[in-house]
C-alpha cells in the first residue's frame, strides 16, 4: 500500500499484550501514523494522554488488570477520537462508553486504521 492515509497522525496506543501492540503499531506506522507509546500500563497511558500531542487513541480497556476508562475520559473531553480494542464483551462496557467504537479481539489492524481514518475525517 503506497498510500498513507494516517500520515502525520499521532496515535496513542495502550495495549498490555506486547505481540498485539506490536502488530497494531506496525500497521499504523505503515499507514503513516506516528505512534505515541505503545504503553502497557494505565499510569503510563494516562501520563501520555495528558500531553497535547495526541490526535487519536487506540485503547485496550484492561491494562494489566486496570481499567483504562480514565484515559478515554481524558481524551474524549478534549475531543480526541478514541476507539477501544478489547477482549471484553461489549455488554461489560459501561453505558457511557456505548458510543465509543469498540473492536473485539482478535481484530485486524487494518480495520482499526479504517476506523481512525473515518473518525478523523480523512
Amino acid at each position, binding site marked *: 500500500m503506497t498510500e498513507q492515509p494516517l500520515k502525520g497522525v499521532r496515535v496513542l496506543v495502550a495495549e498490555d499484550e506486547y*505481540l498485539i501492540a506490536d502488530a497494531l503499531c506496525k500497521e499504523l506506522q505503515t499507514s503513516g501514523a506516528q505512534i505515541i507509546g505503545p504503553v502497557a500500563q494505565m499510569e503510563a497511558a494516562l501520563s501520555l494522554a495528558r500531553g497535547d500531542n495526541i490526535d487519536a487513541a487506540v485503547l485496550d480497556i484492561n491494562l494489566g488488570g486496570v481499567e483504562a476508562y480514565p484515559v478515554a475520559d481524558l481524551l474524549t473531553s478534549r475531543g480526541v477520537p478514541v476507539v477501544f480494542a478489547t477482549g471484553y464483551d461489549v455488554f461489560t462496557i459501561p453505558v457511557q462508553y456505548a458510543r465509543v467504537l469498540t473492536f473485539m479481539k482478535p481484530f485486524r489492524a487494518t480495520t482499526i486504521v479504517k476506523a481512525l481514518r473515518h473518525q478523523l475525517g480523512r
Partner: protein
Amino acid sequence: MADRNELLRRQRALATFGDFVLDHEGIDEVLNEGCRLVAEALGADLAKVIQIESDATVGFVRAGVGWNEGIVGRERVLLSEQSSEAYAIACSEPVITNDIASETRFHFPRFLLDHGVVALINVPIFLPGRRPWGVLQVDARRTRAFDQDDIEFLKTYSMVLGPVIDRIETVQQREEARATVEEREHRLHRILDRMGEGFGILAPDFTILEHNREATKMDGRSRHEIVGRSHWEVYPGTEQSELGRLLKRGMQERVPVSLEHSVVLHSGGLVWLEMRAYPTADGCLAVFWRDITERRAVLDALRASEARLSAIFESVPAAVAAFDRTGKTVLANRRSSQFFANGLIPYSDLEQLHRSRPGHADGALLPKERWPGKRALQGESVLPGQEMLFIDDDGHEVWTKVAAMPTDEDGQTGPGAVVVVTDITDTKKAETALRSSESRLQTLLEGIPQLVWRADPGGLWNWASPQWQEFTGLSEEESAGEGWLQALQPESRDAARRAWADAADTELLAFDCQLFHAASADYRWFQTRALPLRDENGMIVEWLGTCTDVDELRQLQERQRVLVGELQHRTRNLMGVISAICDKTARGSTDVESFRAKFLDRLQAMARVQGLLSRLQPVDRVYFDELIKAEFDALDADETAGKVALSGPRGIPLRSSSVQTLAMALHELTTNAIKHGALRQEGAHLDVAWDLEPAEAGKGQFLRIDWRESGVQMPESPDEVRSGQGRELIETALPYQFGAKTDYTLAPDGVKCTIRIGVSTKPQRRGGDA
C-alpha cells in the same frame, strides 16, 4: 089454595127481593130481608135462615126476622137425625110441621118453643151444583096448614136464594182473598225493606219488578229509576257479563245460581257483591245480593298472607315441621319428607331411628332423651341447634343442624314442637378442608427454609415465622408493626419502605435487602417477595411474604459474572496473541512448510501454558518450576539427557498475567538452544538457575532466572540465526508488559540471559527447593 091477591103478593115479594139483591151485597142484610119478605108473603111472624156450619153437624142461625134479641147470629141448632132441618137437607125436599105439639118425627130447639112457634116449614137451600148450604124456615105461632102453594113458593124462593148466596159468598171470598193478598204483599214489602241485603225480582224478560230499600240504597238511584225497567238497561254491560250469563241461566233452566263479583256502583264506588238468584214459581227470578267488600278484603288479605307464609315455608332452605305432643307431624314443608319419612319425630320413629345419629364432633353418643325434638316437646328450646348425622336414602352421610322449639298449647293436641333441620354437609366439608388446609399451611410455613411473615396492607407485620425470629433474633412482638425494619441493614430500609409504597399498585412486593443474622452478627442478602390476599370483594386484606437467603447466590453470581468476563477477555486476548504470532511466524518463514512447523511448535507451547492456567483455582498460581519443567518435558529426552541442569526453589508463584509471555520467551530460548547450539553439540551444556531476590525500594520480590549456555560453538554470524522472536520477547515484550529487567547476550560459547520479573505477592501454598 092461595087466591089471586095472595099470589100477587108472593110474586111481589120475589120481585122486591130481586131488586134488593141487586142493590145489596152483604149476605146478612140480603138474607134478613129475604126472611122478612118471605114471612110477610106467607103471613107468618117469624122466618129464619140456618146455615150448615163447616162440620155439617151444627146449623147456625144466620139471619131471621121476628126473633128476640140473641137468636139471630147467635143461636145454633143441632143437625141431628131428630132435627127437621137435617131431614129437609137430606131429603132435598121441603118439610112441613103443622103442629109441633103433635109432631113425632122431630125434636125442636128450645128457642122455637120459647117464641111460641107451633108450626114451621123447612126448605133446603142449595148452591149451584146442588151443594147443600142451609135451610130457610118459616115459623108460625098459630097452627095452620102449609099447603102446596106455600111449598112451591118457598121452593122457588129457595132456588133464588141459593145462587144469590153463592154469588154473594163468592164475591165475599174474592174480596177476602184480595184483602189477604194485599196484606201479605204489604207485609212482604215491610220484610224486604227491612232486609240487610239487596233484593229484587226479575221478570222473565228481565224487567226489574222489585227492588228493596237496601238495594236502592246500595245503588244510589231512586226506586222509580230502576223498577219497571230492564235489568240490562239499568245495569249497562251486564247482559254480556258473567252476571248476565248466570241470570239468564237461572231464568231459563230454573236453577239457583250464585256469583261473587265486583261492580262499579252508580255512585262510582267499587264493591264486591255476593249474588244469589232463585227461580220463583211464577217464572220470575228472585235475586238477593249483599256487599261483601269488607269480608272480601279481609279474605284477600288472609289469602295473600297465607300464600306468602306458604311460599316462605316452602322456600326456607331447611326441613321445617311442626309436631304435636305425640310426635306426629301437624304441618311440614316438602323438604322435611327427607328427614321425617313417616311423618314422625325421629326419636319416636322406630322404623327410621337407625338413620339418625347424634353427632358431636368427637363422635360421642347423645342419649335419646337429649335429642332436640324430645327436648322441645319437654318445653326446652334447642337453639341454634344440635348437629346430627343423618343417613339418606342412598346411604350417604348428611350432616345436619337440628334446631327445635316448643310450641304453645293449641287447645286440642297440647303443646308440640317445631323442628328445623338444615343440611350443613357442605359447610362441614368446607370446615374440614379448611382445617386440614390450615394445618398443612402452618406446617409448610414453619418447615420451609424461607423466613415467612404476614402483614396488614401498608406493611405492618402481624405474624413472623419461627425461622424469622431465630434468624434475626427479633421476637414476634419486636417484629410486629414496623419492628421488622430493625433487622434490615440501615441502608436497605428506605428501599424496603419504597417497595411497600409501590406494592399496592403493582400487587407485588419485591426488594432485596441485607438482614442481620443474629448468630453470626453479620448481614446476609435476602430476597423479599410478598403477594396480597384478597377478600371476596377484591380488597386486599393481608400480605403473605417470604425472605429467601440469596447471599451465597449473589456471591456466586458475582463471581460468575467476573469469571465469564475474564474468560472472554483471556480468550480474545489469546486469539489476538495467536494471530500476532501467526503474523510474526509468517514474516520469519521462507516457505509454508517451515511456517507450519514453527507455528505449530509455538501453538503447542502456548497450549501447555493454557493447560497450566486452566486448572487453576482462583487463589492458585502457576509456579515457575512447573513452567520450566513443562517446557523441557516436552522435548525429546534423548536430546537433553545429561546436558541440562535445572536448579532453583520450588513453588515460586508467578503472576498469572505474566505466565504466557514468560513461557513463550522460555520456549523460544529452548527452541533456539536445541536447534542451534548448546544441547546439540558435544560438550554443550545448559544451566537454568532461578531464585527469588529482593526488588529495589520495597516493590516486593523478583524472580531471577539465569539461562546459561556453555561449551557452545556459536555460528559465524549468530545474529541471523539467534535473533528473532525469542530475543524480542525477552528484550522487549517482558519489560513492556511486566516491567521485567532482562539481559540477553550472545557470548562466544552460548547465550547468557538473565530475566528478573515480579512474582505474585499472594501467599505461597507450598515451598521447598526443586
